[in-house]
């Protein structure tokens, strides 16, 4: 199923680094996201992004994951030639990611 059905997301930027928060709608799905939404999975989802290291932070109390995509923004909002120089659309693009449906018994 699409990540869009399980979570909401918000993009931010600092310099050339993009960040994406992914927040489970249902807290019981957070472990499922933690298992399947790995930095490698995120990297594979953005094949054309010139990304350096991707770090993931976990905030269980908010059932949220934070991805930090270093060097993803081509110099950032003050340099990039991209139409979306901030990377504002990255969160929406990430929510297109396909992942297994969570089992009804909370994995």
């Amino acid at each position, binding site marked *: 199923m699409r990540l869009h059905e399980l979570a*909401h997301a*918000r993009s931010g930027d600092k310099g050339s680094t993009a960040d994406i928060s992914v927040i489970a709608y249902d807290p019981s799905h957070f472990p499922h996201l933690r298992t399947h939404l790995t930095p490698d999975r995120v990297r594979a989802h953005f094949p*054309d992004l010139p990304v350096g290291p991707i770090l993931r*932070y976990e905030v269980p109390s*908010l059932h*949220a994951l934070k991805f930090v995509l270093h060097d993803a923004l081509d110099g950032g909002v003050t340099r990039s030639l*991209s*139409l979306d120089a901030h990377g504002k659309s990255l969160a929406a693009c990430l929510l297109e990611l396909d992942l297994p449906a969570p089992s009804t018994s909370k994995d």
Partner: protein
Amino acid sequence: MSQPRSRRRTGTGTGNRIRIGCGAGFADDRVDPAVELAEHGRLDYLVFECLAERTVALAQLERLRDPDAGYNEWLVERMEAVLEPCARQGTRIITNMGAANPQAAARAVAEVARRLGLPGLRIATVTGDDVLHLVKGTPLPLLDGPGRAMNLDDLGDDVVSANAYLGAAPVAEALAQGADVVVTGRVADPSLFLAPLTHEFGWTASDWPLLARGTAVGHLLECAGQVTGGYYADPGTKDVPDLARLGFPLAEVAEDGSFTLTKVPGSGGRLTVATVTEQLLYEVHDPAAYLTPDVTADFSHAHLTQLTEDQVTVTGITGRERPTALKASVGYRDGFLAHGEISYAGSNALARAREAARIVEERLTLTKIPVTDARYDLIGLNAVHRGVGVGAVPTAEPTEIRLRVAARTDTLDHARRIGREVASLWPNGPYGGAGVTRETRENIAITSVLLPRELVMPSTEVQVTVAGDTA
């Protein structure tokens, strides 16, 4: 305006509670939500955060052209809209709309006060963020430099500005000196909101958990409508009512740093655990280490509770010692940019747009225009979307597509010639090219350096002026 301050409202709880509203979250933000907060928010403080990374650098260039310029272009309109209700209710105003010229901005605020018949308004400026003289030509390493530069001196005379992120202290000092309006340049965004809390509650510079909670207040408020449903709404999935009348947020903060976020009843938007979660994590990298000049805040154990409709309480924020260095944004001349666009519609629109892109690319070679970097985007296909679908053949032929050419070059003349190549597709390219737009400009880019804190603090100064004396 100075007397009502002692009649502090206590909000809904017991004991001292400070109500802080956010009247703007970026330079061009709406003005009417700030008026709504000023009139109906029962605020002690109204803060306007209007300074993006590059804004100070652009403002610095304006100031070089005109010594009275270099502050936010909407400052006067905002002050005309809120000064009177704020004066009437004893609400003090804090803003970084001073940008590169807080003194000129303060004179503009004083002029508005005179026009509105508010003599005696005390206006403070906070300066000292301008550290260009301290850093220019030094070999400080760049935190995120462009390919051509590793150290600040590599940028040579292209450097046009350097502004350190000041903390809450000089703003709190201005409040202690009785300012009704505090106008700053570069101050870290959350510090603008933390300052009234340290001032009112007497939090000291090493009360790390308290400073972290006040920083969370600032972080959650600083983007204004982004915590009340803006940048959140997704029709059918995350519905938010009445975004055209989006209410801006306010926080009611207790002396122990616990706080509740809300907005003016009846305003548009929605304030929920979900909207607050998105904003709490917004542009935070390590949630356990959100760095500001004041504190290292830890949001990683934050807990949010929906008290009632449009009221969310935030707990679980902790903090530890502040970073030893201050960050400074450095603006530098980064060549010239050209953008040009043209649309194609109807059958075979995509193929015509692709052919147009190929033609421009060939023309830039034929006409020997030096291009260091270029993009050819097809708006409607791949200009924004990254990831799945990039470069893929669309499943259905788009009914219209817009070619966007963006390129970097060395002179304004070359940039104009790039724009001309896009415009000349009209008569010389595929049929039906429509709606040409083009733009050329010099680009000012931003990089960052870290400075020892001691270098910056001594140059901070606070001036309090009286409206009637600054004509």
